[in-house]
């Protein structure tokens, strides 16, 4: 397996910190990054110019990553930070060809939000049903971390874009997250084995900013479910610290002092 990402401009600096954090906890796996500059510790590939809108470029670059000589491709957004070694990440797949974190159940009546990416939850669920998702629970996801077996990459992208285009025709131009969740429902076998609650020791997204403007310190924290508002304690090895981008940029400086844990 290898890690891969797409990071240009400021995100290249953030990616530098991501890779440094991985090396610091003993991760030796290669990082392949499609970028517009050199990133220390990464095998860099020219990203060229590409369309950033809706982050759908991740699917295009997945097909490039699938040409690398690795069986499993672990995508990480640049703003991920390793606080300890995550162990064998392929355990996350549970023999499925992919892993997507099934985060919030959008069918639950106790939602504190009416929508996801501006789409009413009931519509989102219906779009999933329209496109063949049968499970009682319909999850959303955060696209900061996912795993794909290279032999399913083409199918993965085709399914993702089928769903994206279907939703677009209904008037909702999602980011990459909704199609990613859709593909998860179709390819995971048991989607309930891929929920955040089950896998919280590996990866979670700090979308509420528990670590806002600082680097995660490895201690447990409370993850707030985006849809239900409920909290669960998490202690992931990899923190998607999406509210810590400034701190990650600063940490890319060799002079920066990193937290100890």
């Amino acid at each position: 397996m290898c890690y891969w990402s797409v990071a240009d401009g400021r995100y290249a600096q953030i990616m530098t910190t991501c890779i440094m954090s991985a090396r610091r906890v003993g991760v030796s796996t290669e990082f392949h990054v499609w970028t517009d500059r050199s990133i220390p510790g990464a095998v860099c590939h020219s990203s060229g110019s590409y369309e950033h809108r809706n982050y759908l470029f991740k699917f295009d670059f997945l097909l490039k990553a699938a040409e690398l000589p690795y069986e499993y491709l672990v995508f990480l957004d640049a703003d991920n930070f390793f606080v300890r070694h995550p162990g064998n990440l392929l355990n996350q797949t549970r023999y499925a060809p992919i892993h997507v974190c099934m985060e919030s159940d959008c069918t639950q009546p106790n939602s504190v939000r009416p929508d996801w990416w501006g789409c009413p939850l009931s519509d989102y669920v219906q779009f999933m049903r329209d496109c063949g998702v049968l499970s009682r629970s319909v999850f959303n996801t955060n696209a900061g971390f996912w795993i794909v077996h290279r032999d399913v990459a083409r199918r993965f992208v085709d399914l993702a874009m089928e769903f994206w285009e279907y939703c677009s025709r209904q008037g909702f131009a999602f980011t990459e997250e909704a199609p990613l969740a859709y593909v998860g429902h179709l390819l995971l076998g048991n989607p309930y084995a891929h929920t955040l609650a089950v896998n919280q020791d590996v990866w979670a997204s700090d979308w509420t900013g528990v670590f806002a403007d600082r680097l995660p310190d490895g201690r447990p924290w409370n993850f707030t479910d985006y849809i239900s508002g409920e909290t669960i304690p998490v202690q992931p090895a990899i923190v998607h610290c999406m509210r810590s981008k400034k701190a990650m940029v600063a940490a890319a400086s060799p002079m920066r002092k990193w937290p100890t844990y």
Partner: protein
Amino acid sequence: MKIFFFGWPSFYGGADTKAAHLLKLLAGHVDITVVPNFPDQLQESCWTQKLDEWGVNYTALEFLPDRLDGVALAMCNSEFFSSGIYSNARRRGLRIVWSSEMMWHHPYEVDLIKAGAIDRLLYVSEIQKKALDYESFCDVPTRITGNFLSVEEFPFIERSHDLPLTIGRLSRADPHKYPEDFPVFYEALALPDVRYRVMAWSDELAQKYRWHRFDHRWELLAPEAEPAVEFLQSLDLFVYTLGHRFTESWGRSTVEAMLTGAIPLVPAGHHFASLIVHGESGYLCHDFLEFQSYARQLAADPLARQSMSLACRRRAEMLNDPETHRAVWLEALNV
């Protein structure tokens, strides 16, 4: 009544196996002549012997008399339209009865129906009727004729409790019939001491699931690697998940499985609620967790499995009363 059946029976695929059982059902009650698409099919002695046994005639299209009186029946036979067989039949004076069997229209089907080439249209189920919806574009009379299985072709056998639990499926090797996560879905059921048997497997399916490592628990059999009945008799549970874009118009292999005593676990929807009494003769599952829960209950309780296996047989027998089916067909073919 004289019936000219345009097509040829087979041991493989829903429509052609249906043809074999239908011919047997109607033999002796109407005069039947089978006309294959390709004359060399008349050399298949396994079928000609059965047709002889049933008193069914067979001949090549070119040897049919110029003038005929009766009904031409074609089921899921694309050649019937694309090769112009229908016009040949019509020119000879036959009334045309067509059954798509699929959830989609065959090439030329709609145009020919609109042009008045068909005298009666058959549906296999309500769900297929909803999909094909002939009534929306023509006034050709329709009937729902369903599906008949000759129950003696699929004898029940009591499963051994000493062997590993075996789950599996039988269907055409159509990648659309298989869900994207097929092998991992089976394995994620996490049944103890289990074997997986699948027929009919193909290179195309192997390519679709090339990301999966099929271990020693799996047996992936080519089409007709075993007689269907023996294959189904080897299964304890018939776990029949389907592709996310695929709708099963009826579910023939499911009922075949039930006749042999295999317990079906199928997705809710499709036509399955008409075939299975949930909780009595199998399970209609809305979710992976339901599949898992029912499969584990059955795996853990051999007596419950045995009891439901018998109930499956009884249910499938009830669905296949020959008198009832024959009456439906004779009315439908009385054009």
